[in-house]
């Protein structure tokens, strides 16, 4: 099955892109195409893209799916060079996640990084974060790429993070904590 076959609506959507959407998001006019797309990708798995969380000389694997990075010190970077979700807010942010990001991944599958995830909504912020997180989770699963969001508060119980990476400072030392395993790795600070 050719996954790059596109369905023409007002704009082009790949099968994988369309199948990523919920029935309610698609609407009546695209329902038939959406069902075909779901069937087409049902057993069609892409090989997973594995990224890395890098802190100085420490490297941990970043599996595909939605992960959370809590790092107010700016230690953590992601490799290979991720697709950076552009600085947009509210409706533009949701539109970007639903339309533009999957299109970019249709062309080039790389890790995705969302900076300032908790500063993307000026109203209905909690609902916005839940919905945006759910879209990103679907993107990560459907395209099998790591999707990392940089987030200050990690309290949204609805979002099931694959992994959470937290920079912790304790007694003058820096650690990278990885959840859910709850493992601490000491980070060597460079002067």
């Amino acid at each position: 099955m050719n996954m790059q076959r596109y369905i023409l609506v007002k704009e082009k959507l790949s099968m994988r892109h369309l199948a990523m959407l919920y029935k309610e998001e698609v609407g009546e006019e695209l329902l038939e195409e959406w069902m075909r797309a779901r069937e087409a990708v049902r057993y069609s798995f892409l090989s997973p893209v594995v990224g890395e969380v890098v802190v100085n000389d420490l490297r941990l694997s970043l599996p595909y799916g939605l992960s959370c990075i809590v790092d107010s010190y700016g230690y953590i970077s992601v490799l290979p060079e991720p697709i950076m979700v552009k600085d947009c807010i509210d409706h533009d942010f949701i539109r970007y996640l639903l339309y533009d990001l999957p299109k970019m991944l249709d062309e080039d599958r790389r890790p995705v990084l969302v900076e300032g995830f908790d500063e993307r909504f000026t109203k209905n912020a909690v609902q916005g974060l839940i919905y945006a997180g759910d879209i990103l989770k679907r993107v990560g699963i459907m395209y099998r790429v790591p999707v990392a969001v940089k987030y200050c508060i990690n309290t949204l119980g609805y979002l099931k993070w694959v992994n959470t990476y937290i920079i912790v400072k304790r007694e003058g030392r820096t650690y990278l904590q990885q959840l859910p395993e709850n493992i601490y790795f000491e980070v060597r600070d460079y002067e």
Partner: protein
Amino acid sequence: MDYVMIIKYLIRIGDGCVLSSISSNNHYAWHIVNTLSNLGLVTVRRVSGRILILPTTKARKVLELYDNIVSVIEGEIGALHPNHTHPELKAEDTIESSIPAEMPSFIKGNPWVTVLKSRRR
């Protein structure tokens, strides 16, 4: 660390092993050893520059109990399915199991869902 992980590493340590047998990641191996040591399950010895991890009597008791659990489970499975020795490998989940067709209840009624509809118009 949960109990399953503790048993997993006690099995790996067996009658004793070097640190690198626990994990090739030195930080992580020490994390495991320290956790098990705090629970009184292993002791650490340095012999000729090598770090040996040895199980305590308590660890051996835990492994004995684990063996009993395994024999009970295998006995039951064997009684139900005489030819069954190991669970069958499952095919990978389908997309449906990861991304449901219908919106989950926690998103229904979310004001941001209307974005898509406005885009279509």
